């Protein structure tokens, strides 16, 4: 037992061996075949074969694949997808002047269609000016505080998550393609270590549920692979768009662990790693979940 904790806390190499060694004990169940075609014209990739060395997944699946056919249908039509209401609100915000510099997002970036295509597919990403791996939320707040003289938005707040959804939509259908090498590598490795570390009093890692048991029922829910290519996600449960870090926080809390803060270096690292597990899947956000 003690041994395991030490591995989790200190040695990435040993953690990885441990995780990769557990392949035979897995009980994952692939989801039923289904095609996600949005608005009857945009076909999205919901399953792909990941590159080796990133995870133990033989196939990566979009979380949409694990949902009921009713929930799936809601996401397949933008008129039905309640997440789109928030995208509309974000478009107003995009054009609204805010802050001491008298600027809107549009003043510098033009339309989201022109300037934000492909952005979400490559994030989180190393940002030279910040000297670290940045998320879309960090970029937005960087523009707001340093370029507009406006107040930072709450990291997981409604305005932030809606703006992220607007930006995400511009990449819908493009393959997730986050870089895990170069300057991003140490951050990616930290995220990977976090993913396989069993935390909290229940001693569960992300992999315990999302890698070893996807497709299996845990109480009332079917476990997905915990992919983030569909975020922000509109949840029928809470009636709003949910950000990646808010979801992470809920999952860590459910292991009876002390969570990390949304926007913290730890969660940014975890986001980069989890994103890389879905490299090759389409960006599908804003998605619909229960």
């Amino acid at each position: 037992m003690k041994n395991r904790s030490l591995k989790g806390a200190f040695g990435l190499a040993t953690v990885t061996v441990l995780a990769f060694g557990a392949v035979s004990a897995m009980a994952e169940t692939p989801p039923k075949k289904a095609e996600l075609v949005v608005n009857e014209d945009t076909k999205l990739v919901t399953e792909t074969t990941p590159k080796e060395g990133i995870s133990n997944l033989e196939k990566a699946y979009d979380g949409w694949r694990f949902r009921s056919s009713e929930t799936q249908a809601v996401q397949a039509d933008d008129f039905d997808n309640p997440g789109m209401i928030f995208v509309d609100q974000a478009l107003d915000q995009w054009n609204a002047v805010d802050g001491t510099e008298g600027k809107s997002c549009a003043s510098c970036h033009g339309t989201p269609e022109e300037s934000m295509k492909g952005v979400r597919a490559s994030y989180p990403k190393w940002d030279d000016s910040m000297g670290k791996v940045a998320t879309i939320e960090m970029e937005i707040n960087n523009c707001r505080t340093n370029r507009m003289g406006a107040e930072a938005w709450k990291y997981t707040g409604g305005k932030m998550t809606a703006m992220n959804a607007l930006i995400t939509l511009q990449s819908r259908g493009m393959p997730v393609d986050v870089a895990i090498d170069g300057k991003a590598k140490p951050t990616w490795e930290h995220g990977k270590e976090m993913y396989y570390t069993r935390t909290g009093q229940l001693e569960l890692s992300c992999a315990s549920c999302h890698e070893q048991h996807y497709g299996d029922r845990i109480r009332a829910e079917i476990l997905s692979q915990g992919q983030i290519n569909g975020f922000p996600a509109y949840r029928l449960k809470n009636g709003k768009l949910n950000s990646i870090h808010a979801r992470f926080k809920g999952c860590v809390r459910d292991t009876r662990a002390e969570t990390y803060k949304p926007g913290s270096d730890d969660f940014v690292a975890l986001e980069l790693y989890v994103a890389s597990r879905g490299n090759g899947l389409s960006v599908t956000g804003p998605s619909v979940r229960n």
Partner: protein
Amino acid sequence: MKRAMLGMAMIVAGSIAASAAEIAPEKVEFKDGAVEVSLTGVAGDPAAGRKVIGTKKLGNCVACHQITEMSDVPFHGEIGPSLDGVGSRYSEAELRGIIVDAKHTFEDTIMPSFYKTGPYIRPGKAFTGKAPDGPLPPLLTAQQVEDVVAYLMTQK
């Protein structure tokens, strides 16, 4: 913080003193995953054990296991094997061992250890996501473990 920890320590010490016969989590002896001796010396109550198994804030065993006898409790999971007939597959001592700390029986299992006090990585205060105020009590009390074992033994 220090004061809180001290208070906690006193509560824990108090509860142990109250039932001198109880075996503390660190003192439990395993033999091939099994725990021969009752943790309390008091016979387990199957009805109480059933409650622990079906309650989210307690054992929440049904989150991961299906049990036909408990079909009145909604939503059984399928992460672990069905517990139907588990009382025939295992001895009482083996079941006690599995509930106290299943990692002695199933290496690296994802089943939580229910009668253990650590060490944990980033332990939290129940499901609040916050840091604990002091040392954490085990997930189940010694008597709750005995109650759960007693219930499982009825599943033949």
